[in-house]
């Protein structure tokens, strides 16, 4: 009978998992559906789920009114740049924390993480002023650096966890074999940590892509990424829902596709070390 119970449990778990998954996915699904409705249908009450007149009109209007490609390009540069820059800085940092820890390493890690607990708006004013002072408001390079700094604690933490799984003796063996620090990082540590580094890259790219607070506050035209593209369609009165949805769908499509294809890597990366 034990077997029957297990199967029953399994089915129940599967149903539960699907329910939670659908619940989380529902807003995205609703956004995508709304983007194909007319403005009137979009705000109809009671809401219409599937039997509406499917139209591509919203996409046409959005495409006409704003230059999607420019926003996309900015998003790619800001998200990609901040992620790559972050990894370059975080690999040596995580290496030293994992393999030559000092008495304060744990404190530093916690302190770094604690900066993530600070509400971002708390430092908006100083950072905004610094940007004006340096003349880098609405500048892609400035956003690359700022988003890199924002996500650096997470990158370092993730890499630190992966590196901790690599036995120190292997790095010592490389040192005995004549590898310089650079060669040790390049030929031994990095190849061994590839799965971890890949999922760190992915996760941080997604975080930077979706980051809205800084990108909205520090850009106007030139450096505005897709978050600003969406925001430009939101109106305080709640009008033009369908067009806002179309813009949102266009903005999240690239990252959704990326996430879909890399989900195995992402899940493995996020649970790495936890299950072993």
């Amino acid at each position: 009978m034990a077997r029957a119970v297990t199967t029953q449990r399994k089915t129940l778990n599967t149903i539960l998992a699907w329910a939670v998954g659908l619940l989380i996915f529902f807003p995205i699904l609703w956004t995508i559906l709304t983007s194909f409705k007319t403005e009137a249908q979009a705000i109809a009450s009671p809401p219409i789920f599937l039997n509406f007149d499917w139209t591509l009109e919203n996409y046409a209007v959005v495409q006409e009114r704003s230059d999607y490609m420019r926003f996309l390009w900015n998003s790619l540069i800001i998200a990609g740049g901040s992620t790559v820059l972050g990894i370059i800085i975080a690999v040596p940092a995580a290496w030293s924390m994992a393999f030559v820890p000092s008495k304060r390493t744990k404190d530093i890690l916690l302190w770094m993480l604690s900066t993530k607990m600070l509400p971002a708006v708390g430092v908006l004013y100083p950072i905004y002023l610094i940007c004006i002072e340096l003349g880098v408001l609405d500048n892609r390079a400035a956003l690359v650096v700022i988003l890199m700094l924002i996500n650096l604690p997470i990158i370092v933490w993730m890499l630190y966890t992966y590196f901790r799984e690599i036995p120190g003796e292997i790095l010592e063996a490389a040192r005995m074999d004549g590898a310089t620090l650079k060669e040790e990082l390049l030929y031994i540590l990095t190849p061994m940590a590839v799965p971890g580094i890949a999922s760190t890259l992915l996760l941080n790219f997604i975080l930077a892509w979706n980051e809205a607070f800084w990108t909205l506050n520090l850009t106007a035209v030139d450096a505005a990424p897709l978050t600003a593209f969406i925001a430009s369609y939101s109106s305080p009165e709640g009008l033009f829902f369908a067009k806002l949805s179309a813009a949102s769908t266009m903005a999240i499509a690239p990252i959704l596709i990326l996430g879909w294809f890399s989900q195995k890597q992402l899940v493995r990366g996020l649970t790495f070390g936890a299950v072993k």
Partner: protein
Amino acid sequence: MGQIQLNQVTKSFGDVQVIPPLDLTIEDGEFAVFVGPSGCGKSTLLRLIAGLEDFTTGHIEIDGKDATAVPPAKRGLAMVFQSYALYPHMTVRKNIAFPLRMAKMDQAEIDRRVENAASILNLSDYLDRRPGQLSGGQRQRVAIGRAIVREPAAFLFDEPLSNLDAALRVGMRMEISELHKKLATTMIYVTHDQVEAMTMADKIVVLRAGHIEQVGSPLELYRTPRNLFVAGFIGSPKMNFIEGAEAAKHDAHTIGVRPEHISVSAEGGEWKGVVGLSEHLGSDTFFHIHETGLAETITVRADGEVAFRSGDTVYLNPRADVIHRFDANGLRIG
């Protein structure tokens, strides 16, 4: 080409001094074994020689040249780790070639040396496999291969056999000894297993709490242990220690008699006792004798044919010429 000399070396981790001032010379071509219970500082000492740890004070000379500030890669030493520490993402060939690649050697010479090392270690058929596809013994050989291709001034082994099963361990022990004969290179070998130390070493260094208790050949340590610690550590089963009146008869605070130097009989002898546990090894039998009035247990090593049952009364005769005498400080007398 491989004399290693430590002068007044110390090592502290924070406030804890793990190696008090220590002097030691390992001659060129010697097989030296550091042995001691866990936590005695033997691995730390090896890592200091390797350069993986910095000295707190003191200095090291390799081939007469001061190497204290020389980084590990430049000391000309090769190390074999307890965990083998192979590079899991590289094939056996690339693992063995790695130190040569780091030395920027040309590819033809790298290939020649890798093939050569592989044939010495019977790894030729496995060169294109990854470490994960090899058995423990093969991995160990790859680790040794990676060490020998560099033609180092000395090899450092950090408990290399402790992850292998018993049968493989005996085989690898002999392979390493033969390798030492073939290469005639200095080897320093760390182990907690005194059998490994006795069978492989030219010179044994017995360590306790960072102190060198005694340095000598295996038989010197067996025959003339300098103190109670060495006497108890070297030899298996352990030496019997007897204090009190019996020791006083020999003008000593403590006397030590090895189990193999006591004969046991039913007829009569110097000491009398009752048989407790017997351990039958086939070739030998170890009897644990109680109620002797000398010590809680006296261990006796007898021929495998000798049969006594638990509870039998027996008589023991120690060989007078091999009784070790120690003073109240635990130091050897005479």
